[in-house]
């Protein structure tokens, strides 16, 4: 097998398309991570988005309405998580509960909404159109690479870039970072830590809704039970691997998107599909190990002192409040 036969422009284009759901969800995870909430609910929020995107498109015939419904439904589900966290509940158990709830709810709703059981596919269902950028479209390599994606793909990349600016240059971004890093310090200048956390969790729902829509009405046009298949957790690892910066998360997501693209490609060259499908998960585990090794190396450095000091301060403030 010629290894280069699988590496070409089409593969990169496919990467860009496949990276979008992970990137969108990871940007949502980035927001919660920055607010100091470990959000394992990305998976479930994305699944809710995927279902309601199809439902919206099914009811209205308009894929953008599907996107809107996906965002709304995922954001509402995120409110549940936000309430759990706000009440001082366990974010991890709460997040896993959201995942199970999403799986049960979406499977349940397939019947009343679409009148079938299991998965829903209808050739007449209209997905998001691919946008052909006029002039660019005709340019050989660039056209394939930059033109012909759904609006959500462009939005994902744009949000990563805009997010980088917002996180570091907009007051809300700076406050968000302060809340996650030193909640007592943030509270001491009148920032409502609870409100910022609440907003971050709901926004992560919005982004996961978009991610789910890209999955169910752009990459394919159908809803399959549990179709996110761990992408939410892969997005979570992308947040860690990208050090919770928007551009870092973009890079990490590209890596995992590439693993997905390779999956599709390798299937066509005779490797058993089951092995090929493992690729994204294995790549994610490798990335996790890399993150851990990096953190360990850094811990040994001088930053450890400041970090431990920061956590001391946190405890101190917890006692004070």
């Amino acid at each position, binding site marked *: 097998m010629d290894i280069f036969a699988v590496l070409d422009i089409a593969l990169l284009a496919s990467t860009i398309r496949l990276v979008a759901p992970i990137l969108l969800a990871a940007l949502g995870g980035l927001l919660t991570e920055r607010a100091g909430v470990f959000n*394992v609910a990305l998976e479930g929020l994305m699944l809710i988005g995927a279902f309601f995107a199809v439902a919206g498109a099914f009811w209205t015939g308009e894929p953008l309405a599907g996107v809107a419904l996906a965002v709304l439904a995922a954001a509402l589900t995120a409110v*549940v998580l936000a309430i*759990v966290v706000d*009440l*001082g*509940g*366990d974010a*991890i*158990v*709460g997040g*896993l*509960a*959201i995942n*199970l*709830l999403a*799986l*049960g*709810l979406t*499977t*349940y709703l397939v*019947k*009343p909404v679409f009148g079938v*059981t299991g998965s829903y596919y209808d050739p007449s269902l209209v997905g998001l159109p691919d946008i052909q950028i006029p002039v660019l479209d005709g340019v050989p390599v660039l056209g394939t690479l930059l033109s012909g994606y759904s609006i959500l793909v462009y939005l994902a990349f744009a949000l990563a870039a805009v997010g980088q600016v917002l996180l570091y240059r907009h007051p809300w971004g700076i406050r968000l970072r302060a809340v996650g890093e030193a909640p007592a310090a943030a509270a001491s200048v009148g920032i409502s830590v609870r409100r910022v956390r609440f907003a971050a969790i709901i926004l992560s729902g919005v982004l996961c809704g978009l991610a789910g829509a890209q999955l169910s009405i752009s990459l394919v046009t159908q809803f399959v039970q549990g179709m996110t*298949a*761990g992408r939410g*957790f*892969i997005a*979570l*690892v992308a947040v860690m691997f990208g050090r919770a910066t928007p551009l870092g998360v973009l890079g990490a997501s590209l890596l995992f998107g590439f693993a997905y693209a390779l999956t599709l490609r390798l299937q066509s060259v005779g490797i*058993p599909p*089951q*092995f090929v*499908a*493992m690729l994204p*998960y*294995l790549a*994610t*585990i490798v990335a*996790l*190990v890399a*993150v*851990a*090794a990096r*953190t*360990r190396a850094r811990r040994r450095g001088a930053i450890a002192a400041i970090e431990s000091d920061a956590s001391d301060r946190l405890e101190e403030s917890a006692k004070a409040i």
Partner: protein
Amino acid sequence: MPFGRIAVGVAVPAIAIALALALGAVIVIVAGDSPLDAYGALVHGAVGTPSNIAATFIRSTPIAITGLGVAIAFKGGAFNLGGEGQMIAGALVGAVAANALPALPAPLGTLLAIAAGCLAGALWAFGPALLEIRLGVPMLITTLLLNYVAALLAAWVVTYPLRDLAGGGVAQTAMVPEATWLPAIGATRLNAGVVLLAVLPFIAAWALRRTVAGYELRMVGANREFAEYGGVDAARSIVGATLVSGALCGLAGVVLVLGVNHRYIDGLVTSAGFAWSGFIAAVLALASPILTVVAGVFLGALQVGGLGMTRATSVPLQLVDIVQAAIILVVAVRAGIQAALLKRAGGRGGA
């Protein structure tokens, strides 16, 4: 004030279950059915006839055993979300071992296959445990990702090298020899695997309370710094607990194969969501071994009853999934609820 503490331990799950069932009732009403009919059919489906009760226990066995596995990891403060992968490993390896073994006197082949399944489950959990202890890679995520890998690997095994060609379109292993089947109990559909529900939780509770390793694990879970200061090797304790946890999940898989399906079928573990129900049981029982098994049987009853409900009414089976998820959602908030309750219970006994 032991009575107060026990009351608190039961109060939170009870509140959770009540709220979740209420939510389920709302969904049923919205769907245009009567919740009384639905829940009536559910109760009947679960325990209405001897045959239904048997079905409940058959369903509960893997749930309760994986739940126990998850609970033991919880005791040491470790999050094993890989029950599904470990159960797949146990089921597949158990089936393969049962087929590969030469004909042996009756219980021997069964026991060896069970041992192989447990070992496979433990091995599938070993990597994440090691990564967490050595490098600090969160086990929560690695165990979860390995579920997908296990499912795919098992799918490949039964699709290609070990496919039962007589099975037509179904990807599955050959049927295991009848000599390795778990014996049926009397004339019922129950198999000997259900006996584990009466035995394992007590062994686990005993081990946690009465053995040095169990004590050390509980202390590591309660306060790792304290345990290490007391001379406990916390890393060894956590790895050990994760191995036991994986072995129990593997056991759940192999019991399912030897007791019910008599072969590994692709999707056997995942489609029924056994391991996640086990996880819910462990969370619901706040990791108490005996209560975890009780919760596991309760969830099994809910699911089997759900089938009855679906037959009798137009309410879909997944209502049960929603109720289950809602239960742990409430339990997730328990920190707040429980602290408030404990304060009142402990306030009277405290000095």
